[in-house]
């Protein structure tokens, strides 16, 4: 496997703010990677750095082995439609569909046309008159139909209803199976995409705090529930990520459990449940679930 993206010690400062702070990671070619984090965590800045739209203050970035900055050879293999993308004044949906193939050599016009129908996007409507969901679907359609070897989806489902979100997952997975490529998906709707992701990067206050395979993460934490005394006994020698007490009942989130641990827990009358990716990230970033939901 080779790396599509390699980031080494990258910092991006805005005055005294470090929007991206000494970040090092890589993304393997041909994987779907989640870039997760709260609003203002540095997701968009990081993606702008990766696509040559912004400049690093320190560190180095390579995309397909070369710096992306002003590098046409690299950039023509990259597609990044920002969630807050600006479009030229009075641009209509059809102007986007017409001009995209001039910039993306792998553009599939039939696929784009089918997606426009799937998302029921009115082609003659001006971009600035589109609803939030329709605007998101423009970005989704360009991202999918461009078939760029490295495609970024930035909060692709803002304003999309459940049906349209499902449509996006289905189309992405189907097309990814036919045309494997590297996909970076930035979102706050973590549980909804967690089955899609092969790798997870979590950025918090400009730092990467989780860089792990989705598989590894799913098993990395377990919640044990039982009487307060039993939970106390079980967690005495363990690191507790989070703990709730309701009356005499306690629940505690702990790290990876092996089969011995599980037997011990069962013997103590404790119930075990897997921690969802979203809950795990909330525990690690020290935010509440409401905050993550609200950060849309």
């Amino acid at each position, binding site marked *: *496997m080779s790396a599509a993206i390699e980031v080494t010690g990258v910092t991006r400062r805005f005055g005294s703010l470090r929007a991206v702070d000494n970040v090092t990671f890589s993304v393997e*070619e*041909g994987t779907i990677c989640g870039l997760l984090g709260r609003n203002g965590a540095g997701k*968009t800045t990081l993606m*702008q750095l990766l*696509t*040559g*739209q*912004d*400049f690093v203050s320190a560190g180095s970035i390579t995309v*397909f082995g070369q710096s992306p900055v*002003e*590098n*046409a*050879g690299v*950039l*023509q*293999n*990259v*597609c*990044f*439609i*920002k969630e*807050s*993308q*600006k*479009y*030229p*004044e*009075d*641009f*209509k949906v059809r*102007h986007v569909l*017409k*001009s*995209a193939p*001039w*910039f*993306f*050599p*792998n553009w599939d016009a039939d696929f784009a046309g089918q997606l426009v129908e799937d998302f029921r996007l009115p082609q003659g409507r001006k971009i600035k008159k589109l609803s939030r969901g329709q605007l998101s679907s423009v970005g989704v359609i360009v991202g999918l139909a461009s*078939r*760029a*070897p490295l495609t970024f989806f930035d909060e692709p489902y803002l304003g999309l209803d459940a049906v349209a979100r499902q449509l996006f997952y289905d189309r992405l997975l189907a097309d990814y199976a036919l*045309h*494997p*490529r*590297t996909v970076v998906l930035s979102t706050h709707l973590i549980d909804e995409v967690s089955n899609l992701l092969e790798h997870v990067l979590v950025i918090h206050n400009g730092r990467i705090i989780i860089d792990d395979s989705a598989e590894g993460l799913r098993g990395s934490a377990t919640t044990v529930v039982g009487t307060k005394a039993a939970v106390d006994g079980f967690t005495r020698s363990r690191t507790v990520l989070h703990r709730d007490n309701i009356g005499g009942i306690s629940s505690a989130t702990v790290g990876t459990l092996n089969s011995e641990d599980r037997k011990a827990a069962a013997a103590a009358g404790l119930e075990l449940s897997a921690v969802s990716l979203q809950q795990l990230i909330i525990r690690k970033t020290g935010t509440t679930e409401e905050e993550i939901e609200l950060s849309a």
Partner: protein
Amino acid sequence: MTTTTTHTPTPGALARIFAVVRLHFVNKGQIIVVPWLIMSFIFAVTLIIGWILRTSLSAKDLSEAGSGMQYSGAIGYFLVYMLVIAVMAISQTFPFAQSYSATRRDFYLGTIVAFAILSLVYSAAVTVLGWIEDFTNGWGLGVVLFSPGYLSPNLVERFYEAFVLFLFFFMMGIAVASVYVRWRVNGMLIFFASLALVILGLVALATVSSSWGAVGAWFVAMGFFGVVSWTLVPTALAAIVGFLLLRRATPRA
């Protein structure tokens, strides 16, 4: 594991620049239909005014009205419209082209080519319409719209004057919008404050050295043709400055 999604060979620089040119022209409503619709309306209003004057004024008053019209000009409207087009190209099409993975260099060169083409088309149109206007003695009504008195009577020179003026307005729009894209509102404030100081300084210089007479004489000696030719200097400077600014600019939400 290998990716079947093909990494295509990089198209040549010309092909990439051409893609940007096409991007500027994809929405024809904005760059062709709307300005000509408005121009048609102005033309119709001018013709009606010409007809009203013709039916109600004496020959003497009519000739005075005609000389007053020498300074009305369709070209002025087009120039301002194109300045706005240039500002929007940098403030809106630039961030969009970045999302299409165009490099800043390719975007800038493509933008200049697109505006050079627009300048050619519009100068040719204004020149041809001006020629018809002269030939038909003001569309049969003695009105002046496309052939104002300050333009050269020679058609080739007139085409050149219009072309150079279009380039000037386009490049000013590009340079000023580049300041905005690079440094946002603070950049605009500092830019216009500096511009005011420079102009004030030049006025003070001319006043203190009592050289207003010389300045006036220079403009008279240059004539419209000469002054227009001199705008090529700030036009070229604006093109260079715009490129240097945009080369480090970042599209922001």
